[in-house]
């Protein structure tokens, strides 16, 4: 479930990266690559788990599935937080710089 949610996040962020022209300005590539990197790593994890459990891997207990979904959503939230911080540090429109100099 975590893998599935991360793959969806990767696909959606890639679609947005492809569609919008200001992709460099807002570090959209970073968001895509972060989710794709995690998706690839969890794919490896899933393959090893499948090798160990066999078909049982596809029939997890309901409680495990809920926990994994909760984890997946938290992972996406963390990824978005990391990306937001990177955009705020880059400050492409100078909004933060402007706000800081105005408050002085």
């Amino acid at each position, binding site marked *: 479930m975590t893998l599935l949610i991360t793959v969806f996040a990767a696909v959606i962020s890639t679609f947005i990266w492809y569609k919008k022209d200001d992709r460099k300005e807002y570090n959209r590539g970073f968001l895509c690559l*972060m989710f*794709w*990197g*995690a998706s*690839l790593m969890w794919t490896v994890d899933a393959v090893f788990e499948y090798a160990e459990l066999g078909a049982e891997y596809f029939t997890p207990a309901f409680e495990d599935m809920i926990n994994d979904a909760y984890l997946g959503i938290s992972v996406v939230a963390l990824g978005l937080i990391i990306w937001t911080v990177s955009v705020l540090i880059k400050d492409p429109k100078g909004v933060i710089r402007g706000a800081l100099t105005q408050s002085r």
Partner: protein
Amino acid sequence: MACFLVPATEAVITTAVQMVMKNKEKKADLSSSHATEKIESANAKTGFSVKLGWLNKMLWGGSALLAFEHLWHGEVVPYFPFLTAVTNGEVSDMLAEMSSVGVTMAILVTAIWGAMVAISGVIEKRTETSEEGV
């Protein structure tokens, strides 16, 4: 247990390599600044340091999100020695997992990046030849 440490270690190395490459590319750009044509052709191509940045982003991002997952499952703790496997005396199991799952993760991410670099190289060559044709 701690499989994310393998791609994270690779990320440290590739980030260092990227920094060195970036400096070299900057120096090369400055030394050839008298030949404007040369610069124009260099700008048309994506520098290797930029391409290495793609790998870094995948490795750092993936490792960070996986580290969070390990924290979630209690395999990583925010106090020394940080890894539950070390506290429980399961170091050999942890190393076995790192050498199997961790290494495969690093290889897969690097292989995908290699494919991305190869594809971008082909696209750049095609653009070059089409520009020459015009």
